[in-house]
């Protein structure tokens, strides 16, 4: 049972039950406020009846020509509210906004080790488009899958024909 609403600045004081999950990064303030200032329609929260933040999504629209696409920057759900379909709800919203903006596709990056997330995106209709080598810095660096789903504007589904070879991070636009 959720309230779906736009993220506000003050939510940054209340998102600890989501962000304390080890795979959820807490960024500097500018990261969040840039997204709020530039793509507020993509920055949405799901909130429980008791007022707790259950999860949120951050995204943007970028690219030119046939590369004009929606992008999932961050999608995270609190461990206490998993298996409720919230990730799907948030992704649906992002896809709707992208459709309205006439994007050709939606894409996202995910750690190759994050099997749970990869499976979830596959169930939502995303395919692995390419591998991006050493995308995530760490000890050691980790590869990412670039996963994609075509929007209705990509009639021939060109954007989701997988690449046969991995790419380097610097080659990603």
């Amino acid at each position, binding site marked *: 049972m959720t309230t779906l609403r736009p993220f506000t600045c003050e939510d940054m004081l209340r998102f600890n039950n989501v962000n304390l999950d080890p795979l959820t990064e807490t960024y500097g303030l500018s990261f969040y406020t840039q997204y709020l*200032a*530039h793509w507020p329609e993509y920055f949405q929260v799901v909130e429980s*009846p008791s007022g707790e933040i259950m999860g949120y999504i951050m995204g943007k629209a970028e690219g030119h020509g046939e590369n004009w696409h929606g992008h999932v920057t961050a999608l995270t759900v609190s*461990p206490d509210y998993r298996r409720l379909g919230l990730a799907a709800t948030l992704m649906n919203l992002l896809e709707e906004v992208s459709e309205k903006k006439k994007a050709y596709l939606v894409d996202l990056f995910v750690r190759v080790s994050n099997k749970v997330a990869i499976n979830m995106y596959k169930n939502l209709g995303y395919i692995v488009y390419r591998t991006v080598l050493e995308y995530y810095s760490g000890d050691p660096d980790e590869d990412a899958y670039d996963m994609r789903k075509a929007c209705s504007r990509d009639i021939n589904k060109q954007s989701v024909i997988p690449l046969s070879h991995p790419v380097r991070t610097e080659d990603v636009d």
Partner: protein
Amino acid sequence: MTMSFRESQQLHKVCTIYENAVKIDTTNEELHSHLFMSYVRVGDFRSQQRAAMAIYKFAPKNPYYFWAVMSIVLQAKETEDTTKRNILLTLAQRMIDNFISENRMEAEQEARLYIMILELQEKWEDIIKFIESPLYGQLIPGSISQACIPYLKKLGRWKKVNILCKELLYDNLDRWDYYMPYFDSVFHLMKENSNEENIDDTAEKCHEFICQLVESMSSGRTLRGPYLARLELWKRLSVEGDPTALLGSALALCVQYLRVFASKPCAVPDLKVYLAMIPQEEREANCRDFLTCLGFDENSEPETMDDIQRHISCLTAWRLTAPRPGTTDALQLAATLRRHYLRSLEKNMIKYSTTEFCSADSYAILAAHHYFYAATEQKSSKPILEALCLLELVLLYSPANYHVKLLLVQLYHLLGNALAADSIYRRLELKHIQLVSLGWLHTARADAACVPTRALQLLADLRAFHTHHAKDQSIEHMTYAYKFGTFEKVVELRAWAARLEACALCAVSARRRDLLALLAAPAPPAPPAPLHAAHTDNRDLNIIVNWEPPELQDPDLRSRTFDQDMAYLRLTDALLSSVTLCTELAENKPIEEKMQHYEQLRTCVDTFSEAMEKCTEKYCVYEKITISGPFPSRIIGFVSSPVPYRELYSITLRMIGELSMNNTDKVHELCDQVVAIILISSKLIVQEIRYGAEDNGWSMRDRLESLSNYLQSIGVLTYLLGVCYEMITPTNTKKSKKKANRSVDQMQTIKLIDNINVTLQQAIASLEELMDLWPDYDFSVDLEEELTRMNINPTAPSPVENKLKLGLDKIIEDIQNILKRKTAYLKGLILNTNT
């Protein structure tokens, strides 16, 4: 150059640069935009408006026009003059009306700005007309019905709200933000007695609608929405009547909810709000219904992960409704719950990943609650030690479980060991804004826990975030909103910048850092920044899981602890300000300037003294501790201490003021008083930190907090003595190889200051003796036996005893080193004066 002005907070100079630039290059769009942004940074809305219209004149693009409109709206919001406000809003609206009539509105945010202006004028009808217009639909995605609802509510058009919400709910059964206005409409319509067919204007019709929603969930996922809606209906009806006849008992509804959703971790958090609406007597008498509704009891041994989750949901719901247990029952239940966790471990049912917790972890968390209850009843540390050992074991197998980490930090602090708490705190990897929202949990406590080195680091991190990110970047963020034309966020980002700027925790921490530095890393403190008129509370106090029943919840905890922290802020501000004024007075300055500082010092000391007196009366009641909230504020221990800190600081500071003005008679009198008060304080701190037969672990936190208050006075007094010696041995005398000719009065003053010095050294020596006898934790737990009995060999030994022992040893060692350094410094002061 503008970057350097921005970095050095000279934002008005940036405006000047661009004002001059556009005079030279009058049609340079980029320079004009920079000028506009420079006004945004300083909040000069009128100049913003002028700058925006200037660009629009030669570059007629929508963004610049709407920058001007936004600037007018901000002027309207800022003014208290109603007539001026109305004129400005009318102007802003007219500007956009013209654009609309010329078909020039292009962007979603332009439409949102228009709605903002209409909202400020409370023109709800006009807003609805606009939302229903084709233009809105072209520009703004999403449901028109949903967008209209808030404004229909303002107009009291409850029938329309009712119809729209029902339509929305048929397709979105799980949307709480549709149920809420639906219920609002039902309850308003109930008062109107309209009795129309399609409208739900009675409780019966409302209930029927919810039941239809429940039934419409045929196959597939069962959604929580309609079930929670029924509970919400019960809650609202119970405000003025008894809903039992229509809906059955609240107890039955809650138990039903649990039966359906117990396999989800969110079941009990959802239910928690509604358990409180069951009358306490009924709740407590029937609490076992929650435990047994799925065939479990407290001794059940589930064999699957889903059943473990269901068992835990039933156990936690039971404990949330049961009366708080006495010590024996609490310990028995804790042991049972611990056994459940260990059994899960034994049977390899602890399956976790880096992204998920294991359900069985919650057995341990609930056990920790019951150990905590027993500990607070008995005032004993032993149950807390059991909880710590159990939770550290859980963390070994479930390293992602932050609930366990947070509880460990809380419980290590409860036993006064900030270094042990720190070992877990580091694993939370808090960053950026979390340093603010969760600063209360560890940073604020470290300061009072006699770990000066680590506390200084934590306070420095918080200060760095506040100064650099919160302040500087927040202003810049407002320019992004204009740059991207996101007008709905301009006001929000402004408010956010102001909120962080006035953060209470950051204000307290900045002052605590400077005072703590006098003890551990002495340097002349800078005068603190002025206090804000109203500081903001940015704490996240809901983060630690809490399964205490409703009557143990403390609804005033937030506001009460915030008021206490504010009082403590004002005290430390006055104290720190006084210390920095003393530093100013030691400098070689003309007498007129010194006189000003002298008067300021007197005022500051009076403020401190009066505040101490008021606080001593107000904050004398020791408060209970909750498992999930902040501990009692430091101010209580500080003002209730038998050590007379008010006199200790006031008299010393006054003496320094008089010394700076060469008021010899007053100085001599006050010096004697300072000696006397140091001697009294030295005796009283021993009494306050007395070692008795009671549990050392349980009293450790209070003792260390008392000690930290006393150490603060040592730090401050030592620093102030250094200031005194600066005053009585001016620089030119030190540089000269000849001894200066001193008067009889001066010799007497030096003698008296030396006497204070020696007395302070004696006080430090007395404290050192106390530190030598500081008792250890008594460590005895039975988890090891239990593990052996169940043939469980954890992958690592329990770290608790080591962490506590080594942590305490380090605390004592660091304090002893600090005290040695203070003594050496004080001795050196006498030596330097007399050579």
